[in-house]
């Protein structure tokens, strides 16, 4: 069965500092990986996705993520965090070759100190 873990429940960083949010997945087939962001009271916005090809993917708002099959990881990074990046971040995994559901991780809450 699919599963996603995000080991960090809450992270606090200073504005301008670099950020890495961890994500590990478990899935038997070729995974289709996503990062979504949710601002308070808002819906889910896709930051980036990976399904094949270059294992380093670029997303919106200056985010990138690296797929490492050997570590079953898909960590999200940003070189310099802005105060507006404070939000909840969800890693998600789906099956590449079917209409199967996408499963979300528990989320990491990011706080940014001015």
């Amino acid at each position, binding site marked *: 069965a699919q599963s996603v873990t995000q080991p960090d429940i809450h992270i606090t960083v200073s504005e301008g500092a670099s950020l890495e949010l961890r994500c590990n997945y478990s899935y038997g087939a070729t995974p*289709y990986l*996503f990062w*979504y962001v949710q601002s308070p009271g*808002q*819906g*889910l*916005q*896709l930051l980036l*996705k990976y*399904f*094949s090809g270059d294992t380093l993917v670029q997303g919106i708002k200056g985010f990138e993520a690296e797929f490492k099959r050997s570590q079953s990881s898909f960590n999200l990074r940003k070189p310099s965090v802005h105060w507006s990046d404070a939000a909840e971040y*969800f890693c998600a995994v*789906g099956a*590449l*070759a*079917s*209409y*199967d*559901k*996408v*499963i*979300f*991780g*528990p*989320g990491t809450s990011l706080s940014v100190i001015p």
Partner: protein
Amino acid sequence: EPEVTQTPSHQVTQMGQEVILRCVPISNHLYFYWYRQILGQKVEFLVSFYNNEISEKSEIFDDQFSVERPDGSNFTLKIRSTKLEDSAMYFCASSPGQGADRELFFGEGSRLTVL
């Protein structure tokens, strides 16, 4: 830019009442989903819908829940007899296809409060 729209944005209901949450997916999308998020918790899969039938459902999606695509544009989630624990944000999502096209586009959500 096309988007998934959901109504109502917030609904308050009494326990035991029926609730219908409505979604208008992006027009050329083929796959439809409902997720829910209890306050402060993770986003949980409820049901997926393709070709006018349920393709998969979770343990949460019991006999009190049903989905329908009545007119080719709306996609509804019905809860027949609401319970307190149904209070959550419900997200509708749609996807254009499989493989590389499979990206879920989410609506802004419908907040359900059961009293």
